[in-house]
């Protein structure tokens, strides 16, 4: 700033350069904050279980089984746009007691002439049930690679924690399958 610049106002005593510098720092910090929203969002969703996101894998612990309640768990599979695999749950639904461990199976087949990588993304509804879904094994934890024409049974081992709210009678676990070729590890 050259010597002819407007002089700082005596009564406020601010210096233009200091104020400007602080504001530039604030702008840069807000740019960083935008990126910080990404992990914050995931943490927030995981803690609150909103957005139907499930965590995992967890250690299998033998826990108290609440035999007085039975919850119906339904399985839904969806292919994301353009994903050519056959993808289905081998059982439509299971009945289970909170606390008990269950294994279910899904089936995927790559009917194309290319080797492909898929990634299933889980979602639980109602979302308040999401934090009570405990998975020790899920095909959704990893990418699935299928050679051309290859098919595979994929397991899911999980339980619902006994703390699941008592008004929850039915839980839907939905899996959407994406072509993850671009993100193959």
């Amino acid at each position, binding site marked *: 700033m050259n010597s002819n610049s407007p002089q700082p106002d005596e009564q406020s005593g*601010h210096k233009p350069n200091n104020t400007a510098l602080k504001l*530039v720092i604030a702008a840069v910090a*807000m740019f960083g904050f935008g990126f910080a929203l990404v992990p914050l969002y995931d943490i927030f969703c995981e803690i609150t279980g909103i957005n139907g996101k499930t965590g995992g894998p967890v250690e299998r612990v033998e826990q108290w089984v609440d035999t007085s309640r039975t919850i119906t768990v339904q399985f839904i599979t969806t292919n994301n746009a353009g994903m050519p695999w056959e993808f289905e749950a081998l059982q439509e639904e299971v009945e289970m007691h909170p606390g008990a461990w269950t294994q279910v199976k899904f089936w995927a087949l790559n009917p194309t002439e290319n080797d492909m990588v898929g990634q299933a993304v889980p979602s639980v509804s109602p979302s308040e049930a999401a934090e009570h879904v405990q998975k020790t094994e899920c095909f959704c934890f990893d990418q699935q690679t299928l050679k051309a024409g290859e098919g595979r049974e994929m397991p899911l081992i999980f339980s619902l924690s006994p703390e699941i709210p008592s008004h929850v009678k039915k839980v839907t676990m939905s899996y959407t399958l994406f072509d993850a070729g671009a993100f193959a590890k």
Partner: protein
Amino acid sequence: MTTATASHDNHDDHGHHGPAKGIMRWVLTTNHKDIGTMYLWFSLTMLFIGGTMALIIRSELFQPGMQLIEPEFFNQMTTMHGLIMVFGAIMPAFVGLANWMVPLMIGAPDMALPRMNNWSFWILPFAFGMLLFTLFTEAGAPNFGWTFYAPLSTTYAPSSVTYFIFGVHMMGISSIMGAINIIVTILNLRAPGMTLMKMPLFVWTWFITAYLLVAVMPVLAGVVTMMLMDIHYGTAFFDAAGGGDPVLFQHVFWFFGHPEVYIMILPAFGIVSQIIPTFARKPLFGYASMVYATSSIAFLSFIVWAHHMFTVGLPLQTELFFMYATMLIAIPTGVKVFNWVSTMFRGSMTFETPMLFALAFVVLFTIGGFSGLMLSIAPADFQYHDTYFVVAHFHYVLVPGALFGIIAGVYYWLPKWTGHYINENLGKFHFWMSFIGVNVTFFPMHFIGLAGMPRRIPDYALQFADFNAIATVGAFIFGFSQLIFLFVLIKTIRGGEKATDQVWEGAEGLEWTIPSPAPYHTFAEPPHVK
């Protein structure tokens, strides 16, 4: 004041009298009045370009069926129209008005950072040149809506998205620099005696707006940077296949987006708060409550963003939180409307052109506020979302809101800038044509929206035909009326009845103590404010 000119030796001797000659005056200028003028002309150019796009959209929608343009081009038009109006017309017009008026209103010789000021402006033509240039490329312009939701704007975007991203970066930098300049000017260059609570409301609303800009434009830059990385560097911020989340995009975008809509209205609140007392010949009712209401609106604007996302599958508690927080904004907004009306109550009012636009602002903006309240009711929004009802809402707050505010300000201060009064008959003609046009265009959109017509669709079912035809007629009336505006501007610049220094009988404030037209350099000696 010779801050900038002093640094270019050859200009030194001009600095004290007036502007340099020729094109280089405009390229190198650091004078707040020159830069303000350039911002305003730029914004008017963008208004006409964006307006032409709107008329293309409305022409296609005049009748059901596809008659004039391809659906792909229709999508490019809605996208570009939104981007150009928001970032190219409304925002730069406010910055232009701030450049002209903030120093004059606080008794400062210029903006505090004049060379940065020059940069903030000159970035803009390049940003928008780049954006507009994509229309002529083979891939076509961006077509994913002004809200550019991922993955539509990443996985499925035309290749021009990269130009779009750089364009957004550039205009973001321009806005941030402009905002910093305004804050620094207000904090440091006020004339002795001009305490914060004596500042005119236009200065106050811009002061608060500038903080909003510094807070959220970087978040916008962040979100487009994430898109850039998803598209070109294999990250997966918004791609579920790679572990990302498309809903995250909407959260980050609207964290910017909602404060952004207030960035586009707060300065207009300020302008109207200057004009109404002048023509009611009474001081503004509730000055302090205006300042506090503006601050509360700015604060609340950070905690309501998910009212744009009621239908994405938010949990119940979240829906309720955002619903009530949004409704809360109606309170400070109501305070403002109440104060404007009370200012007029028992005033000796006259109805010159700026006052007419300001009055229309108060009435029509309030209609937009009410439709906003309807949209804030989460369960009702499931019906309204993504229909023409939303289009009606935001056009009521943006066209007779933000844009009328700008036009009112231009008519109000034009005699000070040019030294000439406008031709009142032409001004009133412009007003009435705009007023009729705007309502004929946007009011029917409430009805077709409630009846279920989706937005951003080039074709529609037969039952929406009549109201769409009416809206198109209104749009042409409104659009062509703006040529009257252009005509009045040029005519007033070239001549007209000589304006007095005070210009308007009831006008008060430092900007009315200097000669009309305002000399190239003002307040080299700071005035004393009692």
